[in-house]
């Protein structure tokens, strides 16, 4: 086990190298003139010099490998360039936006995973009964509802008609409190900061803004977890050792708990890992629908305005974070299932 983890850790830099390579290759599709835009902060800088001068000045016409290492050096110093669409350095924009995305992910992950596993077990245990069919139909409909359709409908009703769950991250008044001097931003996550500052009204407001995106995310991903739990539990239910367990007279709930569910959790664990990754990426659309100012919305806005610097910068950031979490998922997978020791 330790050697497996060690080997995976050794590969980490290689994978990170791959990530940078992908982004660099993506960048090489852009002309030097497109790239120079990331260095220009205001139109004034164009007054006394032509674009060619700027390309020369920032040495954007150098050969690829030299550019790559210079670019890598910049990244290691935390310099991801200047974003036109966000009007600030990409690194600053990420620092401001990432806590929001993280907050939404954390907030949504618990109902998604627990709800999904619960629904999936019910469905598998009552295989082919009306309960099974009802849960499956419920889940399939959720899986078929794209977040941008469901989200808009949710907003139309819960915001437009009832006025309960507004879009955005905070109401204006709550934003004023959060931005005021007395309010200390410990984490950048509104709910956590509100608790630490004992601003209960702000806390409630932040929750109110999180509910609609969480509903949207949960319903979408429930189906996913349910499917995997159900099918893997059904798989396991037909295994010989389950028959043996039943034959030797174990009570049904012990069979389910000890023999079935535990073995059935293997695929669920892998998939849940992928799901977090998928969620972080899928948040782009959810955040756009709900106007939730996180990293996803930052990337989406930047992409619409073809702000390459910002798109590539945030992707670099995502890449690093997700390579690390992918590693964690793999290690967890190996921990749960001893058969997966790659030798």
């Amino acid at each position, binding site marked *: 086990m330790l050697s497996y983890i060690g080997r995976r850790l050794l590969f980490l830099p290689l994978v990170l190298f791959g990530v940078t390579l992908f982004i660099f290759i993506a960048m090489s599709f852009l002309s030097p003139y497109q790239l120079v835009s990331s260095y220009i902060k205001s139109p004034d800088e164009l007054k006394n010099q032509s674009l060619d001068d700027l390309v020369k000045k920032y040495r954007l016409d150098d050969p690829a490998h030299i550019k790559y290492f210079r670019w890598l050096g910049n990244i290691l110093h935390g310099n991801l360039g200047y974003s036109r669409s966000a009007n600030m350095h990409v690194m600053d924009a990420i620092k401001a936006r990432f806590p929001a995305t993280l907050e939404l992910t954390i907030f949504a992950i618990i109902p998604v995973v627990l709800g999904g596993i619960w629904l999936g077990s019910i469905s598998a245990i009552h295989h082919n009964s009306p309960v099974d069919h009802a849960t499956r139909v419920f889940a*399939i409909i959720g899986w078929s509802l794209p*977040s941008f359709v469901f989200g*808009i409908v949710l907003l139309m009703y819960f915001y437009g008609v009832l006025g309960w769950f507004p879009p955005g991250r905070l109401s204006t008044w709550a934003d004023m409190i959060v931005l005021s001097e007395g309010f200390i931003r410990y984490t950048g996550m509104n709910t956590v900061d509100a608790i630490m500052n004992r601003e209960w009204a702000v806390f409630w407001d932040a929750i109110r803004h999180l509910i609609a995106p969480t509903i949207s995310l949960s319903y979408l991903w429930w189906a996913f977890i349910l499917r995997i739990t159900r099918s893997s539990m059904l798989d396991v239910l037909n295994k010989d050792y389950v028959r043996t367990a039943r034959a030797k007279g174990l009570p049904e709930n012990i069979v389910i708990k000890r023999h079935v569910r535990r073995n059935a959790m293997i695929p669920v664990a892998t998939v849940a890992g*992928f799901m977090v*990754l998928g969620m972080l990426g899928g948040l*782009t659309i959810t955040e756009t629908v709900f106007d939730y100012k996180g990293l996803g919305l930052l990337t989406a806005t930047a992409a619409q305005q073809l702000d390459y610097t910002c798109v590539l910068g945030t992707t670099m950031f995502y890449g690093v974070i997700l390579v690390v979490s992918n590693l964690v998922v793999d290690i967890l997978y190996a921990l749960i299932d001893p058969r997966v020791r790659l030798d």
Partner: protein
Amino acid sequence: MKKLIRNPLSLFGFALLIFFIIIALLAPVIAPTPERHKHEPYRIPRYGWQTTPTPPSKEHPFGLTQGQYDIFYGVVWGTRTAFFVGLVVVGSSCVIGVVVGAASAYIGGRTDEIIMRIVDVFLSFPFLIAAVVITCVLGKGLDKIMIAMVCFWWMNYARLLRGNILQVKEEEFVLAARAAGVSHIKIIIRHILPNTIFPVLISASMDLGSVVVTAAGLSFLGLGAPEGYADWGQMISFSRNWLLGAPGEPLKYWYTVIYPGAAIVLFVLAWNLIGDALRDILDPKIQA
């Protein structure tokens, strides 16, 4: 096949799917292209220039969305776009994924490690972000969206298949085949793939819906075809501006989201219902 039809859910899925296929095939009959742009049928005709949507009427049964684009026309021709995008992306990705996954797991050892690291790199990006990056540097457009999606869609098939093969690889029937001197290719095709490829095929069949949703999502973000192209995602992105309605009439512009939204939901639902039933039928382990 018989069982697919006997199951009411998958039957409904099939009915929906056939319905969509008919719509796609008969699009020129159901929603004839106006004479003034006969040569580009995928452009939704406009009936005016003002921004505010117009409610459904006799001439325009689904109403006119922002910019007076005909919703009915867009929904009908958008079906063609959806099929095209879905089939191209899933087909290409599935082939790549199965080849890479089978090779990686069966060869094992260092090759497996290297291939899986490469897959890791691809997987380490959230799919949408990666697709956004590629679409962004290649330039906006539906073809760019499809290229971007194939680049980042095959890994899940590869990884899924590899995981399954790793579990099956050491089981007796494979060892027996190997001991009997069956060639490697034959072992993979005759003995390993039939026992491992189901989840891949199922997830591929289910994915046809997801691919269409994702492509529509990228269009929704504004990275797809130019404005006015018959594409469900784009039509839904229009409706985002109208979700509040007017004072006293909160649901005034419902038709801008419900019609294209229903089209995409039903389309995906059809695929998902079939994919779901298919799994139960194809998997002999569950039939017991």
